[in-house]
């Protein structure tokens, strides 16, 4: 049983004791154990390292640790060898013996595993030299890579729970509140509401029972910031939550984790147990007289349960349905008691403010948005992953400097920020600084941090349809504008992408949008029109092409495209013919292949498989498919390929 920490002195001694047990010069292999890298087999890589260092007899000199997510998910499994900071990417089990013998034993760098810039070919050995990391400032997320999420000592070693000790032993709740107010932390869940104002409301609401809640019901498609933080560094969230509870006067906290995040649940439960052992949670924390316990609540998989009043209903054991919030949840929340809810990332920022001070914190970011923000940068971008930058960083810096630009040298078309509530931002706004206020001005929002990059091959009508489809499934269905509005949105967009759009449809969409926005009960409905409105605003020509010309300019919408084999390019190699799942391609060796448009299901297999040196399969849209060639024999040039 660990010793209960009773004072600031105790805390300092504990940290010193833990740190003294760690040799800073000892080689430590940190292996990313985030969900992305786990999918690439990081568990097996970890196991292979543990066995291999033993086998090669360096297990005394070398430590091996599975950590939280490092962020560069595109290149998983990511490992960093400390203290030299040698970063190896796309590591597989087969690479492990070589890494141990070459790098760990002989201190030689293995070039092929280091980062190579796709454009310049330049290599970077050190993690901090890799452009993806170099342009970030990972004050919240960066700690993940030093910590085994199941080890509270790891967290304490890098200064964890010092902020809690400071708050409880040296500050009054009012002082904590003032510091958070001065820091102007705004809600990272998307709303951007000042945390201190919310805290103050709950604090001053008269009630003997108050609650604080961590919202880890992240559900935006493509977003996984909160997941990775909760999985990788659960103590930072618990520490922030406890500090908040102290300031607010709450003695009970909930962590609401969605069912789909088993690792986050596991690591949070483990963290709560460890924190209780040291007395960071429980009765009379650090002898301050303050009691606080935390419980994990699992969601049942409804997107709308991320909305505060719906989430609180779910905690009460009822259906996760929003209620009108004319009386705020911070006044009347769970079981009618004042309940303060903040997002995972918001809570994780609190210890920073307390330990480093509001002055330091406000030196980062823009006038209205302080600190950093974590984004999940996904889509058609070279470096997919989690990115933390100061508020005010431009979209261009995030997508090009950190993200490494668009995949396969294609042309950027739009970036979808803020998930289904956000909007699609076109190229002309790439130099917009990203913060709570600037993106709203162009009809999108920063939201909780989802960032989906789209290129010339994305159809914007199809993108709008995708998000509307998502929302019509995920709306709770209670209020008419959201439920029925989305039903018709969906119908209209479906007919546009299938070439049945009507001339009046754009106007009808806009007309419905005004009402869905104005009259819906909760933020899900109020923001649901954003993907539709921004795509109409910035890509109206694409809507018109679908409706008026039955043409999909990006050649995505299946009903409006045809696959066609160009006779002069086809070498009759049989690859597409053999692989067509519906047998729609006719031809033979030496006979030019032809797609039977009546049979074709437009799966695109032929296009994917046609060798790039032939490039014979193309997509057509808005034009008739030329009739099959009269002469089907392939004319072979001398020396041409079979």
């Amino acid at each position: 049983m660990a010793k209960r920490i009773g004072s600031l002195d105790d805390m300092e001694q504990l940290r010193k004791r833990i740190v003294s047990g760690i040799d800073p010069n000892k080689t430590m292999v940190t292996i990313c154990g985030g969900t992305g890298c786990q999918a690439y087999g990081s568990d097996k890589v970890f196991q292979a390292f543990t066995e291999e260092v033993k086998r090669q007899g360096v297990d005394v000199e070398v430590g091996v640790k599975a950590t939280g997510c490092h962020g560069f998910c595109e290149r998983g499994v990511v490992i960093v060898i400390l203290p030299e900071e040698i970063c190896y990417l796309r590591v597989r089990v087969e690479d492990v013996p070589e890494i141990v013998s070459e790098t760990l034993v002989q201190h030689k760098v293995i070039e092929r595993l280091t980062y190579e810039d796709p454009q310049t070919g330049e290599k970077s050995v050190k993690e901090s030299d890799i452009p993806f990391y170099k342009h970030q400032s990972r004050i919240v997320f960066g700690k993940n890579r030093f910590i085994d999420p199941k080890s509270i000592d790891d967290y304490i070693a890098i200064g964890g729970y010092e902020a809690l000790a400071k708050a409880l032993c040296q500050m009054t709740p009012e002082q904590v509140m003032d510091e958070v107010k001065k820091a102007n932390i705004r809600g990272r869940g998307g709303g951007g509401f000042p945390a201190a104002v919310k805290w103050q409301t709950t604090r001053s609401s008269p009630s003997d029972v108050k609650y604080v809640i961590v919202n880890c019901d992240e559900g935006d498609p493509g977003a996984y910031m909160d997941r990775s933080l909760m999985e990788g560094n659960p103590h930072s969230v618990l520490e922030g939550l406890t500090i908040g509870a102290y300031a607010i006067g709450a003695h009970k906290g909930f962590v609401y984790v969605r069912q789909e995040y088993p690792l986050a649940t596991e690591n949070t439960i483990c963290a709560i147990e460890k924190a209780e052992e040291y007395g960071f949670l429980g009765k009379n924390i650090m002898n301050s007289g303050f009691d606080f316990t935390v419980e994990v609540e699992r969601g049942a998989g409804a997107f709308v349960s991320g909305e505060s009043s719906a989430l609180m209903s779910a905690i009460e054991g009822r259906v996760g349905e929003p209620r009108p919030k004319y009386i705020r949840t911070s006044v009347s929340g769970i079981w009618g008691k004042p309940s303060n809810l903040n997002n995972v990332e918001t809570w994780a920022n609190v210890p920073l403010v307390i330990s480093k001070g509001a002055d330091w914190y406000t030196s980062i970011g823009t006038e209205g948005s302080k600190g950093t923000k974590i984004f999940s940068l996904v889509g058609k971008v070279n470096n997919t992953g989690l990115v933390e930058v100061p508020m005010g960083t431009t979209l261009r810096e995030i997508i090009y400097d950190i993200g490494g630009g668009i995949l396969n040298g294609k042309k950027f078309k739009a970036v979808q920020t803020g998930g289904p509530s956000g909007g699609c931002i076109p190229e002309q706004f790439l130099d917009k600084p990203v913060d709570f206020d600037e993106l709203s001005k162009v009809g999108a929002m920063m939201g909780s941090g989802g960032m989906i990059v789209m290129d010339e091959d994305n159809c914007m009508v199809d993108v709008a349809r995708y998000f509307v489809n998502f929302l019509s499934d995920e709306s709770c269905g209670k209020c008419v504008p959201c439920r029925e509005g989305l039903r018709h949105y969906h119908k209209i967009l479906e007919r546009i992408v299938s070439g049945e759009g009507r001339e009046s449809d754009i106007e009808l969409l806009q007309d419905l949008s005004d009402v869905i926005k104005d009259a819906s009960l909760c933020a899900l409905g109020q923001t649901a029109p954003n993907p539709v409105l921004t795509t109409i605003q910035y890509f109206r020509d694409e809507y018109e092409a679908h409706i008026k010309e039955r043409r999909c300019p990006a050649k995505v919408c299946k009903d409006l495209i045809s696959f066609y084999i160009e006779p002069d390019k086809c070498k009759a190699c049989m690859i597409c013919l053999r692989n067509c799942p519906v047998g729609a391609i006719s031809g033979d060796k030496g006979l030019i292949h032809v797609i039977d448009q009546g049979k074709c299901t437009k799966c695109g297999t032929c296009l994917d498989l046609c060798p790039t040196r032939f490039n014979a399969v193309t997509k057509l849209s808005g034009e008739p498919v030329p009739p099959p060639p009269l002469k089907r024999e392939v004319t072979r040039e001398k020396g041409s390929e079979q």
Partner: protein
Amino acid sequence: MKQVTMSIDGKEVKAKEGMTILQAAMEVGIKIPTLCYDDRLASYGACRLCSVEIKKGERSRIVASCVYPVEEGLVVETESPRVQKIRKVILELLRARSPGLKEELAERYEVDKTRLDRDATFCILCGLCVRYCAEVKGANVLGFVGRGTERQVVFFPDIAFKTCPTCKECFNICPTGVIPSDFAVNVPRFEKQPTVFPVRLRDEQNLREFIKKIE
């Protein structure tokens, strides 16, 4: 109980704290259209037909008057152009599900009849039956299932066939009349076949005739 003074459609209105805008308006004879509201039930705020525009200082916004509490100095407009547009479109959306619904209001707000594709189930998910059954009768025979556009009202078979035949009070509360229609087909078969069916107009013949009539 504290009293607040506010303005509704330019009229000075005194109301007791804790009342909703809708109640305050009713007391002075200002009629706000409603659909899912019933004074025997807790306010629900789902149909949004009772939306009104409120002004606090410079800011103006839309709220549902059946749930928004009165406030000192509040300025309420119950028929602003923004509000009228909302009612018009909400009625249009509802009438795509239940043709002929609220005919008078539809005329008043000049609701378009042709823009939206019709999908006439006649259940508009106002929840009056569900809430009445739960709040007034304490029977909980009806409930919502599904989410989003898949949301539906159902009778729960195992209690319905025992409780409903002697009650039938929800027949009158249903604004579209779909409950009796569904009930007649569904409830008698529950004893033998306890399967959940969504409440919707069951009689296709009647439906066709009905739609013909209103067109």
